[in-house]
Structures are given as C-alpha cells and as structure tokens.
C-alpha cells in the first residue's frame, strides 16, 4: 500500500498550485522609516514589484549621480538584497560587509548582521548564521524582529533545541505570518521526532488561527497544517483523529485530493469501506491527473479487495490499469513535447515565465501537459532554473529595447549637432574678438579725451550744440571786427562781443563741474556695458564650447554601444538556450521518474487484476470457494 508516496508528490504540487507569483522579491516588507532620498524610494517601488533589474539600475544610476547621500546605508542594504535575490551573492556579501564600518549606526549594523545571517543560513553555514544573529544589539524594527526570531527558531530546531526554539517562537507576534511558519515547523519537527501530540497541537494552532482568513498564503498554510496533523494521526493509527484533522482541509484547495485520500484510508481502517470508497470515487470523479487521483484508482481496488469484493476489486484494478496506461501515454507525449522544445511555450501558457508586460499577462488555461509538468516543476532546483531563465529573458527584453533605442539616440544627437552648427555663426559673430577690441579702443579714446578735458579744464569742449553754434558765431564776429578795425569805429560792437563772449564762457565754466561729472558718469556706464559685453561673450563662448563638449561626450558614449548590446544579446541568447536545455533535461528526468512510478502502479494494477482473476477462477473450480 502506497498512499503516502502519492501524497508526498501532491504536496510538492501544492506549492505551485497555490497561485503565488513565481518571481516574488526576496524581501517584501514595508519600508522602515522615512524616505530621505527619492531615488531610494523609487528603487523600492520597482523592488516591491519584483523588477530587480530596474531597481538595481535605478540605484546604481542614482549612486553615480550622488542622489543617495542622505540614505546611503539603506540604499546599499537594499542593493545588497537585490544582488542577493539576483544571484550575485559575492557582490551582496561585499556590500553588506562594507556597511559594517565603525561609522554605521547600530540600527543599520543590526540589519546588516541579520541579512548576513540569512545569507549564511541559506548557504548552509548554520553556525555562522547563529553567530551573526548573536551580534545583534537591541531589537530590529518589528517586522524584521519577527523574521529574526523565525530564523532563530529554524536554527534552534536544526540544533534539536526544541525548548529554546519554542521560546524564540513565542517572541513572534501571533498575527505575524512568521509565527505561523515557525509553529508549523516546530509541529513538523516534533512529529518527526516522535512527539506526535506536541506536534499536532502546534499544527492545529496554526490551522485554527487561519481558519477564517481570506489570505491565500495563510489558507494554504492552514490546509497544510491540518493535512500534516491528519497524516501524523494516520501514521499512528488514530483513525478518528485523522478524520477530524483532515475534515477541515478546504475542498477547493490544492491539498483537497490528498486530504480526501488520506481521510478515505482512515475511514477504511475504521471499518467504513463505503465511506472510504465514496471518497476515493469522489477524487476520481473530479477527473484530475494528480498523484492523489492516480493513487485513488489503485486504492479503490485495494479497499474492495480487503473488503472481500474480489470481482469489483478486479474491475477497479482493471480500470486503474487503463487510467494509468492513459497517464503513461500522456507522460510520453509530454516528454516528446519537451524534447521537441515545447516546454517554454507551456511555461508561458502557465504563467511560469513571462515576456514583457508582466502586469498585463493573462494566464492561459492549462494545457493537457500541465498536470504532469506541474508535478515535475515542484522541485526547488526547477524553480531556481526557471528564475534564471526568467532573468535572462528579462535581460534579453531590456537589451532589445536598448537596441531599438540607440538609433533614436544617434538621430537625436545628430539633430542637436546640426542645430548647434546652424547657430554657431551667430554665436561666433556675437563673440567676435576683433569687434570687441575695436569697441575697447573707442572707449580708450573717449577716456583720454575726458582726461584731457579735466586736466585742461576745457569748458568749451563740454558746450552743447546751441552753445557751440553760438561760440562759432562769436568767433566769426571777432574775425569780422578784426578785419574792420582800421576803417570804422567798432567800439560798441567790440564791447557787445566782449560782453556776450564773456557771458557765454562764464556760463560754461560755471557749469563745467556738473558737465564734467556727467561725462565721467557716461564713461563709467560705458565701462560697465563693455564689461558685460565681455562677460556675455565669454559666457557664450564657454557655453558653446561646453555644449560642443557635451555633444562630443554623448557621441562618445553612444558610439560602439550598439556593438556592445549586440554582443551581450548574443551572449544572452546563448545562455537562454543553455538554460532552456538545462530545464528540459531537469524536467525530462523528473517526467521519467514520474513515468517509472506510474508504470509501477500500472504493473501493480495489472498484476492485481491477474492475481484476482486467478483467485476467482480458482474459487470457481469444483471444490473452490464460490
């Protein structure tokens, strides 16, 4: 009798059927404290959406731009976590260690110790993990404190320190999912150690706490806890207890068939074959292709045989053999499909991997191959390999995007260069040195004249237009007087000339200081204007040169990128092919194992049919039992 073998398989299956996204982030806890750098918050935004490539890129770019200075520790811790989830473990550890300098605040150091402990634990270095946890000084923020105690519980369970583990577990708040996992682990460990009652009480505690939850993860955990408790009771021949524990496993949950089959066996052992066969038939009637259904086919024959219904048993065994043959044919087709390279399409159909627009993806209905593939996909190794493939596909998609973008960059830059070249003559004209020097010479001539006027106190030089006209007329009058001096009496005219000339000069000389000050002021304004012109020309020349340098820099940064992208794309495609091949091999091996197991079941069914027919024939012979 092999009911548990089937159950084991369906339990692994359950993990995938629970409908949790494949590529969840490694640490999806809320941000602690305030966001002090937008770039850090933006990286978190992508991190929480399981976009590690984008999150890492944003962090690295922000670091280059100096936009993480106010939250450097948090940013590096996040980057370390991202590296870790992205499979760059040495880089993650290096970043974590770099955060442990003396200047780091204790709260940050504690979080670093915790992260390093996780890394060590995952790598199987349990002593180091425990040592790192011991270095924590004070409590972590609430959510991480719960995680820390969960990790501690796991370490203590591993060291068989059940009491200490229980103590650590009790430090996790009961509303935390980590408490549920910790209790679940403790329950399982105690059952495995033969302390079934203690283990059961922990498992039922988890199940009862999550009895009315609507959270899928907690519902699944509750089902798993009930199933584990029920199977433990079944193993210990506590049939009634097994039925009680299994009864509340959700009928529409992924563990339903397994629980039904286990319950059916409990009913059978309790002497109620009708109930047992009814439940087994209920599993079969669902028409599913999971391990529990395969086992149920065989189990029906076994129960009927043990109940003495040999003909009916033979009929069930025969039906089981046919069903299993059908399963074998299905598995063969799936293997052929995988060998022909159809696996990736199936993974896409099942939403196991995505290409672009992950949010918009609508999961396709499962294919005929799905039940067998899902079983084969339950291993951790498969999940890791698929994650690698997903990351490679993401990388390829990103590189393809860049490949399409680079020509646009080149075009934009080209247009900018052309626009700049078109503006260049105007810029050069505005900044023409000869023109500026001529202006400076003119200014110097003007300054010399001002200086002379001042030195010679040349009031006439500051006469306005009317005054100049007047002076010129007076000069002409004086010349005329000189010419007529011997022939006429010019005394009166001379007197008038002298008076008017004197008055005019007096006016000019009296007003000289004011006029000279105004002249100096004009010189100052001219100097200022010339200085501004110099600066503007310099600035324009500088901006122009800088702009050209920027354009050159951008051009250099764009040049050759298409070749680099093409090379990385080729590398990526090669690795995608290799990764797909590795996944195919892994899946085919798992399918072959499944095939061998199914073949054994079918042989067992066929043998049972033959054995029962022999027995029935023997019984029908004269003298045999009828």
């Amino acid at each position, binding site marked *: 009798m092999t009911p548990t*073998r089937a159950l*084991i398989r369906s339990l*692994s299956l*359950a*993990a995938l059927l629970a409908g949790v996204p494949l590529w*969840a982030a*490694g640490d*999806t806890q*809320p*941000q602690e404290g305030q*966001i002090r750098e*937008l770039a*850090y*918050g*933006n990286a*978190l*935004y992508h991190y*929480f959406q399981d976009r590690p*490539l984008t999150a890492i*890129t944003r962090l690295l*770019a922000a670091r280059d731009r100096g936009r993480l200075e106010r939250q450097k520790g948090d940013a590096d811790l996040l980057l370390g976590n991202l590296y870790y989830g*992205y*499979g*760059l473990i040495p*880089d993650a550890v290096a970043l974590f260690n770099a955060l442990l300098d003396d200047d780091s605040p204790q709260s940050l150091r504690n979080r670093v110790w915790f992260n390093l402990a*996780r890394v060590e*634990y*995952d790598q199987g270095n349990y002593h180091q993990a425990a040592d790192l946890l011991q270095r924590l000084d004070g409590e972590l923020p609430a959510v991480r404190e719960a995680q820390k105690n969960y990790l501690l519980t*796991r370490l203590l369970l*591993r060291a068989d320190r059940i009491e200490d583990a229980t103590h650590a577990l009790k430090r996790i708040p009961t509303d935390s999912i*980590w408490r549920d996992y910790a209790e*679940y682990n403790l329950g*399982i*460990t105690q*059952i*495995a*150690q033969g302390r079934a009652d203690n283990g059961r009480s922990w498992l039922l505690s988890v199940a009862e706490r999550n009895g009315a939850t609507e959270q899928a*993860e907690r519902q*699944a955990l509750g089902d*798993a806890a009930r199933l*584990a408790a029920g*199977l433990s009771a079944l*193993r210990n021949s506590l049939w009634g207890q097994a039925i009680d524990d299994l009864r509340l496993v959700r009928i529409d949950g992924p563990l339903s068939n397994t629980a039904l089959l286990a319950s059916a066996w409990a009913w059978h052992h309790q002497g109620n074959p009708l109930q047992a066969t009814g439940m087994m038939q209920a599993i079969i009637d669902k028409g599913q292709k999971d391990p529990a259904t395969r086992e149920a086919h065989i189990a029906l024959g076994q129960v009927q045989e043990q109940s003495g219904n040999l003909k009916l048993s033979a009929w069930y065994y025969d039906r089981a053999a046919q069903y299993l043959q059908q399963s074998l044919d299905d598995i063969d087709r799936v293997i052929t499909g995988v060998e022909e390279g159809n696996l990736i399409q199936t993974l896409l159909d099942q939403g196991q991997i995505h290409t672009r627009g992950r*949010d918009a993806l609508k999961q396709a209905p499962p294919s005929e191959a799905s039940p067998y593939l899902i079983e084969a996909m339950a291993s*951790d*190794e498969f*999940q*890791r390999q698929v994650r*690698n493939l997903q990351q490679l596909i993401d990388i390829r998609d*990103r590189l393809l995007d*860049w490949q399409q973008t680079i020509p646009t960059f080149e075009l*934009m830059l080209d247009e900018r260069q052309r626009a700049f070249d078109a503006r260049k003559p105007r810029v050069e004209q505005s900044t023409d040195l000869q023109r500026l020097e001529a202006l400076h010479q003119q200014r110097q001539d003007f300054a010399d004249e001002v200086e002379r006027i001042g030195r010679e106190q040349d009031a006439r030089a500051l006469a306005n237009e009317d005054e100049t006209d007047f002076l010129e007329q007076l000069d002409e009058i004086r010349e005329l007087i000189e010419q007529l001096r011997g022939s006429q009496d010019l005394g009166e005219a001379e007197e008038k000339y002298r008076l008017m000339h004197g008055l005019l000069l007096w006016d000019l000389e009296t007003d000289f200081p004011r006029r000279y000050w105004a002249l100096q002021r004009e010189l100052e304004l001219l100097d200022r204007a010339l200085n501004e012109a110099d600066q503007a020309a310099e600035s324009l020349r500088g901006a122009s040169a800088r702009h050209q340098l920027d354009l050159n820099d*951008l051009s250099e*940064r764009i040049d050759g*990128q298409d070749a680099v992208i093409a090379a*990385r794309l080729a*590398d*990526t495609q090669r*690795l995608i092919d290799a*990764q797909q091949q590795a996944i195919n091999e892994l899946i085919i091996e798992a399918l072959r194992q499944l095939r061998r197991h199914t073949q054994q079941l079918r042989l067992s069914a066929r043998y049972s049919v033959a054995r029962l027919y022999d027995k029935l024939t023997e019984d029908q012979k004269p003298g045999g039992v009828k």
Partner: protein
Amino acid sequence: MTSPLIRLLFLGFCLSLSLSAAHAQQENEEIGTDAPSEQVIDAPSEAAPSTRLQGEIRDLKKQVLQLNKDLFLLEEDLLFPANTQFSVFLSLDAGQLFGLDAVQLKVDDKIVANHLYTDRELSALKRGGVQRLFIGNLPTGEHEIIAIFVGTGPQGRDYRRAESLNIEKGEDPLFVELRITDDPTKEQPAFTSRVWE
C-alpha cells in the same frame, strides 16, 4: 525574508519531509529497521550549487547591470539635460482614507502624464515605494503644476481632488514629490507636495 512562493515551497517541502518520514517509517517497519529521523525543514535558499552555466549567467548579469546603468544615464543626459530636467514623484502614506485609482498631471495647463494604477503598483506604493510619475524638460522660470487624484474616498465614495503647486525652475534638475496621506483629524485624505533640493 522570503517570497510567498518560496514560503509555500517551503511549506510543501516541509510536508513532504514529514510524509517522507512517515513513509520511511512505514516501509522500515515492514523491513524491521529504525526509521531515519528527518529534521531538515528549510525554505529553498537563494544560494545554489554553482555550475558553469550559473557562473556564466552571473558574469552576464554583472555586465548587463553595468551596461544598463550606463545606457540609463545616457538616456537621461540626452533626453533630460540637467538644466531643464524636471521630475514629479508620487508617494503614499497610510492610504486608509483614499484608494488611489488614477492621477493626471498638468504642467502649465498642459497634460503631461496620466497614470492608472495596477494593484501591484498600489501595493508597492503602500509599502513605501516612490513612483516617478513624470520626467521631462522645463525651461527656467515659474510654472504651475496641477495634479488631479481620482479614486475612492472615505465611505467608499468616488473622490476627485486637484492640487496645484507653483514652482520655480532654476538651472539644476528639479524634483517634486506629491504625497498622499491620511488626515485622521478630518477623516479625509490629505494631498501635499514638496520640492526636493
């Protein structure tokens, strides 16, 4: 610490081990030996035995991360030069009194961004993530930003609210954060903004 999937895998794995132990005991009882005690109940780790393929993938990832960063910065420098660069970010604190559905952003009365939120994005915002809602170019001088928030307000009613902000764009990149918080005293959502230095 670990993803929901990993935790569920962990769950399946633990159960498998539990059942392995049960099964082993059954089988060993049949052949009369002691059952081995299984205690390893770990979540699948991020760390995996390193193969040549995995090593090559790691090398490629590192190269691509560097390339991706360089191209990201190049794109920013080319499309949004520092002297005109202008970004608007959105963050969400609490969010009990307002369920965000969409945001429309106007700059100087011109619509520059419309965003309809997915559950995934909202979840990321609620966990503390900050969304870059818009990045563009803006000349130096004064500008007006108007953000129109659409969603579900208190008592599940449709809620629409516009917030405006006057900004002064200088020669350096300008970063504006729009923040949605709860105002427990008024039992209403509050919309604030901040210009980051």
